[in-house]
């Protein structure tokens, strides 16, 4: 296993469970750790619980997946319990993914989440499925991004904060820079792309109950690699490279683009929970074959 340092956190491997995938409960997250995952991110949670969108809310298509879960979550009380439970059961790092409907809520959720002492707080400002309710995602506005980063940092105390960005909007490099300037400790890139829509041609209706959903999985790998490349160019803080990683080569591309550690989501569907072990072994083999001792030696190498 490739031990990885990230923000003073020790990970047993560079692969991290992305938010929204199997991250609802301690039992679920622990199981993923048993398959070689280096750290887990919880499902994004808010102050109050949310039912989210009706089903179908998660639909694979030929080249990836659409989801419009609608940020369903059991609310902070329950999630704080699960994080604490995970802490007791498991030594692997856990990242708490949070979101709010208002600036103040971002602050309040952060404050409460920090009490559970997660290893990092990941701030989801880029979910593309909640437009209608909140207008454009916060993460597509530069001033909002700055303000959220400030308020979250203020309430997070000593717990490091990563801001999770989407691929679209006013330029991910620019947004990452704003996060860095306002104190973010890391960037998670990317959230889902699109959004997209699938229409059933027999019933002639959009398949997702929410009609549109964010695109993840293999289809978005090039967009994710490009986003990470751009973020790496504009900031010094580390990046959790996420989006479309399914095979070893995808993971290597992300590292070459500048990712520090790797978020893996949809691949759990394509490759099973075993995907974490597979990727870790693949990365190890690649390093050996190409004559490197550590990920550090190749991180960002595509920029040279």
């Amino acid at each position: 296993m490739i031990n990885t340092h990230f923000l003073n956190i020790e990970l047993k491997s560079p692969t991290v469970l992305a938010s929204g995938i199997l991250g609802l409960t301690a039992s679920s997250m622990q199981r993923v750790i048993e398959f070689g995952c280096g750290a887990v991110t919880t499902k994004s949670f808010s102050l109050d619980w949310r039912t989210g969108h009706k089903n179908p809310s998660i639909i694979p298509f030929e080249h990836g997946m659409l989801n419009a879960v609608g940020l369903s979550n059991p609310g902070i009380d329950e999630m704080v319990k699960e994080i604490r439970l995970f802490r007791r059961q498991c030594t692997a790092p856990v990242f708490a993914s949070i979101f709010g409907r208002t600036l103040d809520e971002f602050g309040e959720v952060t404050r409460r989440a920090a009490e559970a002492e997660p290893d990092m707080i990941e701030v989801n400002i880029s979910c593309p499925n909640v437009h209608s309710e909140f207008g454009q995602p916060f993460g597509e506005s530069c001033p909002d991004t700055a303000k959220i980063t400030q308020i979250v940092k203020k309430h997070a105390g000593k717990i490091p904060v990563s801001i999770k960005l989407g691929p679209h909007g006013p330029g991910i490099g620019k947004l990452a820079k704003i996060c860095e300037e306002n104190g973010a400790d890391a960037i998670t890139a990317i959230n889902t792309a699109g959004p997209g829509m699938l229409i059933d041609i027999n019933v002639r209706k959009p398949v997702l109950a929410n009609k549109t959903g964010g695109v993840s999985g293999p289809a978005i790998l090039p967009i994710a690699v490009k986003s990470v490349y751009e973020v790496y160019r504009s900031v010094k803080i580390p990046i959790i490279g996420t989006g479309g990683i399914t095979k070893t080569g995808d993971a290597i591309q992300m590292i070459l683009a500048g990712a520090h550690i790797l978020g893996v989501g949809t691949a759990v569907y394509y490759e099973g929970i075993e995907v974490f072990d597979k990727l870790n072994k693949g990365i190890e083999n690649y390093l050996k074959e190409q004559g490197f001792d550590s990920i550090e030696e190749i991180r960002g190498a595509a920029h040279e």
Partner: protein
Amino acid sequence: MSDLMQTFPIRRIVEHGPGVKSFYFDKIFNVEAGQFINLWIPGLDEKPFSVSSITGDQIELSIKAYGPFSKEMMKKKAGDYLGIRGPFGKGFSFHDKALIIGGGIGIAPLRILAQKLKEQNNTFISLLGAVTRQEIIFSSWWDSLGQRHFTTDDGSLGLKGVVTDVLPEILKMNDIKYIYAAGPEIMFVKVKEMIDPTGIPYEFCMERYMKCGIGICGQCVLDGSGIRLCVEGPVLNKEALSGITELGMKHRDASGRRV
């Protein structure tokens, strides 16, 4: 089989009585006994349903009217298109000298199980309970399969009572090597109390609120074990069930809260 959403017309509908119907579709995929599909009513919602039989070149879903989704299904006509994704999950294993215990519409996955057991010349006894007679779907078909026991709350078919009333007697009188169960979790918890002391191995087909059906959303994950019911279930064996701390307790709703 396809995890992608595809829509198919209902070919035929059989009404078992008020609020219980079987729907037949072309056999668009192979299915193991105990596997389920996600059924989409366009514009409404998507929910998991066991495949209850493969009959000729058709698959069958058997549905009881509970709430908004299943009640809407009662209005569907042959020719209507519905979305089907699947089959998902892992089904039953096959054993001889079995006892099949079903409650209510939980009988659905046991029907295809009985079909498959018979195909493979495994012998079994069935013990099926429900609130009232129409819920014991295909009761005369079950008659034809050999030793069977029915119970209904209202006595409209078989014994008046519940399955656990007759279970001890059946266990005493027969050489049962394996037990299959499907139905309300509360029924299973009571059954489990009775069969655990006997040491007979068993499998139970469980239900939970599901979203993705493909093992990524975490909605159906069971406390204690981390098992994803949609992938590693819905049929769980004794060992898997013993690791679950939430059996017969609160379940998770669409938000993920325990309710």
